[in-house]
């Protein structure tokens, strides 16, 4: 600790006892917001003299005293049409991810998905604000060196190259808002006692992205992905490292397109209190959840 702490503590030994009578806030810490009168800051209080500024009769916003206002002068140009409905992918950089791994917040011996990243407490997602998952960005791509099985929702070509160059595997996968809500706070979801939902298929405008082997989409053909890995390695000029045989099983682990959590199937109910997993028995449910 800094020397000032020691100084303050040794000073306290010679000072009268600190008690209710002699404690106070720092001088100037609290600012009183009061409208002073007369000599205590009276005058016009910043409103000036006479006219609209004093009497608050402001014109409505955009009104130009009779001119054709700017906001009506041009025909309709819908730059932001549908903007509020677009899918958002809050970014996480490779540098951040490497930092999370280096500070032991993420265990690389298991596949890493959105739940793992959210459980660090250092990445936040709000599905109700149209957040659809994590976007991995290429900052720190040069120093990324973790061999991981990673699943993100959006990744650029550079990011895919950086992860594969380090000897890892990356997948992009879509989660619908209901699945995301279950992933955001897993504990509170399990406490609700409802079955794990089925993951929905991506909407029509996202199908193309998630079935493209170039994006390592989870709906694309695995053989085409391994082709694309070689193509990308040639494009960026690195030799594709062979997957580490010791962790090959972990690196090859994938989720079903309907599955949300590793090791848990849709339709199961996780009882945290009794520490049991309840599985559906009825044929109709089994068929619905494709068990």
């Amino acid at each position, binding site marked *: *600790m800094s020397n000032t702490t020691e100084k303050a*503590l040794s000073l306290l*030994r010679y000072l009268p*006892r*600190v*008690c*209710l009578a002699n404690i106070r*806030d720092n001088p100037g810490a609290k600012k009183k917001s009061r409208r002073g009168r007369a000599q205590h800051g009276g005058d016009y209080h910043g409103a000036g003299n006479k006219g609209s500024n004093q009497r608050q009769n402001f014109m409505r916003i955009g009104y130009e005293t009779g001119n054709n206002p700017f906001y009506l002068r041009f025909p309709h140009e819908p730059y932001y049409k549908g903007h509020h409905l677009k899918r958002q992918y809050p970014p996480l950089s490779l540098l951040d991810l490497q930092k999370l791994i280096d500070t032991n917040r993420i265990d690389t011996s298991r596949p890493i998905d959105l739940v793992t990243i959210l459980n660090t*407490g*250092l990445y936040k997602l709000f599905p109700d604000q149209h957040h659809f998952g994590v976007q991995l960005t290429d900052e720190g791509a040069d120093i990324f060196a973790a061999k991981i099985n990673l699943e993100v929702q959006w990744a650029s070509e550079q990011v895919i190259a950086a992860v594969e160059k380090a000897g890892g595997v990356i997948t992009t996968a879509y989660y619908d808002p209901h699945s995301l809500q279950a992933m955001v706070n897993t504990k509170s979801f399990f406490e609700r006692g409802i079955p794990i939902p089925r993951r929905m298929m991506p909407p029509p405008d996202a199908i193309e992205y998630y079935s493209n082997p170039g994006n390592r989409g989870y709906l694309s053909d695995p053989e085409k992905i391994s082709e694309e890995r070689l193509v990308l390695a040639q494009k960026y000029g690195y030799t594709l490292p062979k997957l580490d045989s010791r962790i090959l099983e972990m690196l090859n682990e994938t989720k079903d397109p309907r599955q949300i959590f590793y090791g848990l199937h849709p339709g199961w109910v996780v009882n945290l209190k009794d520490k049991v997993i309840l599985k559906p028995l009825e044929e109709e449910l089994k068929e619905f959840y494709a068990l």
Partner: protein
Amino acid sequence: MLANITAKLRNCTCTARKYATSALSTTDNSTSTSIEPRTLTFPPKYQEPRQIWLESLDSIDQSKLGLLEIHPSVFAARPRIDVIHQNVSWQKMYRYVSYAHTKSRFEVRGGGRKPWPQKGLGRARHGSIRSPLWRGGGVIHGPKSPTPHFYMLPFYSRLLGLTSALSVKFAQDDLHIVDSLELPTEEKSYVEELVKERLWGPSVLFVDVNDVFPRSITIATDEIKHINIMPAYGLNVYSMMKHDTLVLTRAALDHIESKILEHLHKNDTRAVMAKFKVDQQ
């Protein structure tokens, strides 16, 4: 201002030093062999662990059982007097509801009729006898009942308040650790004499880990208003500042230290702060 006070105080000899609880040198811990040493969780990286005497309430005169190590992040933290003040004023204010009440001109009875015509009498114009200008009229912007003053101090200010208060108590030799709160008698005079003999100041706060206390101390301190007992979960900055001396049992020390260290080292800041966020959306 502080410099002035310290200059004066430096001259006076400190007679209470022989009763000091914080051990300044480790050379004289001949008695420390008999007690179980403490292991500090989250071992401090940059500060030395502090040492404090483990005492006993078995006899009136000082009896030291040994030395204990205590964590510097809790008991030698930066003594933020301002944060202590913020905690104390928060503790006073959050439960305070002002019942002061005044009536506006429309709540005061009567005054609907114009007292006299606008013109022609040579008198000042008035529309109501309950106007704020009148005696017995309404009050402008007066206090309304009930006015709650509840607010929540941020979690980490509360935590810093606790570490600051404990550090101040320890730095000023007002913190004592005892093995248990069991007294040999249930006599009121025993506690009074003990406190007087050990120079623990008139007011003392005894803290144990649970809210079930030994019968002897509850009966002995029951009548004395300035000697109080409190469970560890009730420990707060206001009570620490109100009492001259804080006496913790060893179990309470373990409990308080582990709780504070746990909060100092966890990283779900947002979760603990979210509950009382003012502008929740």
